[in-house]
């Protein structure tokens, strides 16, 4: 006789997953999405499309783009400058965001702050995070007009929300006994923050900030195109949508890729050097 808690499926085998419901919901979702995708293909307008030629032309385009990249509408120096503009956008948004997020995270870590203050900040920040960065940029564009100001504000806003969550979780991991020990000596709140919480979490704070910087760089590229924030993203937009210059698109893509690789290498290097212990 089976124990009351033991569950079997229809074939009589013993279940080892907890919820059958969750599994079946997932299965149904995947199945219906697949069906939708397949039917969508049937309803496309295929007039004048020859699959063979389409594939050929795409291949040719890709080849011009990536095997013959060149600059036609601006110089090397300018390209470098534009990449610099994009990086600066990301740097400003990340650094300002990290500083503001640090203080907000202190008030929102349950072990450091008042319960109600912490709850309100967390809810507020979750709301900001739920809206994508691009939307925030467009929202700020109403007040600031499309351009770098709106882009930075939007990125800043989302960075703050993202980092507050990451930072406050790092703060909440701090050993409770350590805080108690300092309180028992008569230390004030700021003493505890600066001399116990910060030393124990600084490496996490830095690596979260760096991760956010990488995200902000790619967002800044997109914002250059979508919000006219300038930088390499805007040039990419002009090259593809305005001049139809495939070679330049290829060049810009390589430039962005290169920066991304440099950032990645730099961050790994920094982590190895400073965060090893």
């Amino acid at each position: 006789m089976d124990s009351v808690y033991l569950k079997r499926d229809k074939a009589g085998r013993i279940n080892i997953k907890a919820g059958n419901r969750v599994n079946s919901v997932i299965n149904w979702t995947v199945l219906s999405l697949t069906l939708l995708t397949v039917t969508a293909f049937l309803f496309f307008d295929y007039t004048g499309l020859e699959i063979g030629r389409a594939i050929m032309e795409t291949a040719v385009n890709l080849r011009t783009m990536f095997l013959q990249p060149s600059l036609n509408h601006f110089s090397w120096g300018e390209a470098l400058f534009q990449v610099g503009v994009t990086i600066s956008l990301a740097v400003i948004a990340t650094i300002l965001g990290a500083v503001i997020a640090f203080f907000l995270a202190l008030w929102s870590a349950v072990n450091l702050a008042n319960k109600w203050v912490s709850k309100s900040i967390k809810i507020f920040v979750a709301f900001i995070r739920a809206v994508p960065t691009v939307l925030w940029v467009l929202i700020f564009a109403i007040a600031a007009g499309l351009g770098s100001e709106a882009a930075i504000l939007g990125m800043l806003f989302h960075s703050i929300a993202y980092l507050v969550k990451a930072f406050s979780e790092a703060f909440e991991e701090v050993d409770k006994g350590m805080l108690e020990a300092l309180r028992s000596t008569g230390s004030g709140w700021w003493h505890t923050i600066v001399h116990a919480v910060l030393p124990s979490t600084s490496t996490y704070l830095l690596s979260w900030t760096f991760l956010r910087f990488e995200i902000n760089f790619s967002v800044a590229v997109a914002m250059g195109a979508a919000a006219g924030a300038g930088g390499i993203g805007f040039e990419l937009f002009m090259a593809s949508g305005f001049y139809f210059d495939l070679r330049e698109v290829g060049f810009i893509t390589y430039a962005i890729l290169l920066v991304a690789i440099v950032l990645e290498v730099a961050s790994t290097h920094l982590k190895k050097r400073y965060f090893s212990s």
Partner: protein
Amino acid sequence: MSLLQVKDLNKSYQTDTKVLKNINFSAGTGEFLSVIGPSGAGKSTLLRCINRLVQADKGEILFGGQDLLKLRKKELRAARTNIGMIFQHYNLVPRLTVIENVLHGRFGYKSTLQGVLGRFSEEEKERAFYLLEKLGIEAHAYKRCDQLSGGQQQRVGICRALIQNPKLILCDEPIASLDPHSSKVIMDHLKSISEEMGITCIVNLHQVEVAQSYSDRIIGLNNGSIVFDGSNFQLDQLYIKRVYGMETRELITV
């Protein structure tokens, strides 16, 4: 005159179960007092009520003429400088050096800005080194605390408490995570602190033998009430049974 006087102390975490029930006792200057009792009796809660790491519900804790339970934030900070605390798990900041951790004991005397900037006077640093030397760990002064053994970390914890110039030191199971040799070193240091420096020590202990051989007085706690309060030779089999609910020979003793 007694340094510390606890009157009718009551504490409950949840409303229905009382963890401490009408606790009354006092401790004199330089006295070495042990608190024994089974797990969950409320020993840690009692110590934490004294320096208000947990908030007592009712009662009075007279320390140096003032009722600790009535103090506001700022006065409480000032009062806490007179009460050192030593923890089972040392509770040092692991990424900082030994000397930095010792100096943390001075924050209670500092303004926010002074403390945040980590400004310590030369006398304070000299005092820190003097204490490290006294406890025999001055060689490790510039090591990070996570590189130290448990016994060494506990000695850093003692230095951090001593640099406060406390009148009272609360120790919550200071030797529960240590081997017998380190335990003896720590207990000897605590004993000499109370004898030579005249600092009152209240020590939570799990080992009856240790309590008996070091203490001037023992308090036995069971289920939130004091069931024994007397000198170590008065603690006989009958009282041990009352405290732990069983005879010594049934207990695992060190």
